[in-house]
């Protein structure tokens, strides 16, 4: 099972690199779709069916909005300017990546190996979860009953983002030159 995950992650990384280096914006967006749909298969392999349902629809809507934005403006990528690439820049990049991987290594030493999760806190949610909330789906029970206040915060973020979109794209009350 871990082998399948590694294969799909390598495909996602290939899609991500191609999407950032493409010379045409439409190819970049279609390669970005590979990452999204590969993530759906990863969620199914990791036994999370709610997340696979949400991710597949969200990815489709994101692709629709991105293609609509690109086809109404421009499709070209900016011509790369061959500037003076100083060596100090490259050295800083390698130092930064080295620091990042070192600190990441120190952080994951406290995590268990992949697949042997010590469910210390989750036992308190799993065992009495079904009787106390009354729902057979434990993820829904955690979202709306044990952690309902956080779901209110998430719904507020969604509402605020939509208010932001409506403000940016406002048409009435503006003087066009």
């Amino acid at each position, binding site marked *: 099972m871990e082998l399948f995950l590694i294969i799909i992650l390598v495909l996602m990384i290939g899609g991500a690199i191609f999407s950032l280096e493409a010379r045409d914006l439409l190819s970049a967006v279609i390669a970005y779709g590979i990452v999204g749909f590969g993530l759906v298969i990863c969620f199914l392999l990791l036994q999370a*069916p*709610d997340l696979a*349902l*949400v991710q597949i*629809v*969200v990815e*489709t*809507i994101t692709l*629709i*909005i991105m293609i*609509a*934005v690109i086809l*109404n403006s421009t499709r070209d990528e900016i011509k790369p300017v061959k500037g003076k690439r100083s060596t100090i820049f490259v050295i800083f990049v390698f130092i930064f990546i080295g620091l990042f991987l070192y600190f990441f290594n120190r952080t994951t030493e406290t995590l268990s190996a992949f697949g042997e999760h010590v469910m210390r806190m989750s036992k308190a949610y799993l065992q009495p979860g*079904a*009787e106390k*909330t*009354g*729902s*057979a*789906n434990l*993820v*829904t*029970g955690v*979202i*709306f*009953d044990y952690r*309902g*206040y956080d*779901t*209110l915060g998430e*719904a*507020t973020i*969604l*509402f605020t*983002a*939509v208010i932001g*979109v*409506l403000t940016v*794209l406002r*048409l009435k009350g503006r003087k066009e030159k």
Partner: protein
Amino acid sequence: MKGMTIIVKTVTQIVCGVIFLYGIYIIVHGHLTPGGGFAGGTIIAGSFILLILAFGSEFLALKKEETGSSILESTGILIFLIVAVLGMIIGGLGIFFINFLPKGVIGKLLSAGVIPVYNVAVGMEVAAALLTVFLALLIYRDEVLK
């Protein structure tokens, strides 16, 4: 924006009602099977977006404003808040978000107290939010980028 070919229009007429019904099923059975409010809300928004894309904005004669769907979105989150505050008043312990309706047998449709109400409220809010964003982009494109 123009619509698509006649094959897409015919298939959309058959399919978009089924997608809408599937979204409602995922919302209502949120406490029994995988899914819940967020997944069902995005599926319902997907069915409306399919309808708009297949038939074009001129055919549907959109009213050129997105006020209706933003009223629905505000109603959804208001219901969420009112039920949460009702838990503080009725529940008897003064706790925000307490589950105060009776929890029935695990596995039946009418169980889990107040969770199905939360699912419906969140589903309505998410579907209306995504539809508002899509309509705002569509109206901007039609009015400005002629």
